[in-house]
């Protein structure tokens, strides 16, 4: 459904992504793990066209092109078929929880307002926040804001939703409620690509784990295999270090 081949990206001569290839199938829940600075955020941002890639090929939603050759129309197509959940939520501060969700539907998808509100309420229901629909982001806890962020993404019914460390900015006691919502999404068949430091999520919820380091995919595969019997020394070391810290 989504295929990335040889994706490259650098900043000011520093090569950050050194040729990444990923295959995402419908219903996949893929966890991307790896040390900080390894290029995970950059990877999500280049795939979703928030950042221009320097090289590589994308096959997705009818677009089948090299990244450099994407035109405005392709970029629109890609953006309309992905959802993005940000590390720091990025809810529209001047909109209520409900409006955060209806904005995209009304403005980008041209859905009628009443219809958009119905969809938005459904989405809020799914993340357990229908009673907060008229709250502004500043009136919500971090966990609630992130759940609205997730509702905003699912309401648009994208082919795949990207999550960039969705729980990293949260106080520890709020991580659970967000992970629970993500788990429900995964169970309902939503295609998800999740950058995470939550090893429990990677191990128990996803069907594939990708370990990234230094702009490369070092190893990927079944979570059980990666966690119990990694083939690469780097993976082993990373997992030992991170699991020692929980």
């Amino acid at each position: 459904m989504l295929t990335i081949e040889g994706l490259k990206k650098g900043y000011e001569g520093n090569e950050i992504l050194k040729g990444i290839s990923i295959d995402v199938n419908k219903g996949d829940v893929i966890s991307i793990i790896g040390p900080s600075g390894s290029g995970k955020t950059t990877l999500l941002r280049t795939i979703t066209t928030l950042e221009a890639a320097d090289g590589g090929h994308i096959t997705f939603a009818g677009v089948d092109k090299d990244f450099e050759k994407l035109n405005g129309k392709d970029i629109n197509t890609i953006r309309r078929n992905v959802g993005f959940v940000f590390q720091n939520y990025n809810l529209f501060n001047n909109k209520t929880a409900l409006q955060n969700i209806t904005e995209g539907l009304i403005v980008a998808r041209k859905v009628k307002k009443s219809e958009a509100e119905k969809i938005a309420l459904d989405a809020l229901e799914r993340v357990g926040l229908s009673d907060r629909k008229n709250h502004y982001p500043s009136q919500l806890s971090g966990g609630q804001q992130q759940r609205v962020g997730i509702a905003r993404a699912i309401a648009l019914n994208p082919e795949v939703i990207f999550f960039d460390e969705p729980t990293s900015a949260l106080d520890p006691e709020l991580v659970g409620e967000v992970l629970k919502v993500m788990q429900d999404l995964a169970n309902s068949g939503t295609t998800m690509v999740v950058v995470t430091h939550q090893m429990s999520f990677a191990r128990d919820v996803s069907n594939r784990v990708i370990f990234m380091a230094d702009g490369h995919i070092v190893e990927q595969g079944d979570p059980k295999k990666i966690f119990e019997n990694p083939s690469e020394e780097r993976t082993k070391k990373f997992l030992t270090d991170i699991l020692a810290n929980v």
Partner: protein
Amino acid sequence: MSLNTDFMVKVAQTAIQGVPVTLQIVLVALLISLPIGVLFALIRIYRIKGLELIVKFYVSLVRGTPIIAQILIVYSAFPSLLNMMIGKAAFSINPIYYAYIVFTLNSIATLTEVFRSALQTVDKGQMEAGLMVGMQPRQAFWRIILPQALISALPNIANATLYLIKNSSLAFIMSVKDITAIAKTEAAFNYNFLEAYLVVWVYYLIICYGAEIIFNLLERYFSKYRRSAKRTTGFNWNPFSIKQPKLVVKTDLAESERTNNAHN
């Protein structure tokens, strides 16, 4: 020294005719310079080639010169310029148009800087979130970025407006019949300068105060989404309720605490 109160009432009555003139100058200058200020701010933020330099130059030109010099230049340059274009009719133009020009040009520079910093306070994640729900950059700008920038700019817009109101009193130099000009004329006839100027003083005070109230209401209304603005920075603009927070000083407790701490 005693004040001639009868004269003050008389000046108040004639000078009130200048109030609409002052308000007109302020409103025209504001309404034109607000959108242009946003535009110029965007030119600077997005570093539009060529234009950026012009805007930068313009802003420093205005900010680096006293308004009185700007007034004198516009007032001496424009009529002769117009004279070349439309002939003698140029000299029968209502001087208030020159006031519009000067104060608009001046406000544009101020507001460009106001909007530039306000737009920069909006996190770039807001735009990215807009793009990721399928909006065009333009749509995200109008619906998400600009409203937030305007609200965070409100206190500075209010400030600029107050300066504008006060600066507009210099319009008399261009023989505009505003509050100041009328009062000056009255005073010159009767040599009661202090009385006339006290009236002027009160009028400006009232106008500025009114503007402040309007801006505070706007801020309150539009900041409803900002929790902190409601609770902590709620400026009490009503001078009739100057309440000091009651300081309950429990001296004995404070004393015992101090000794406690000393023991620790």
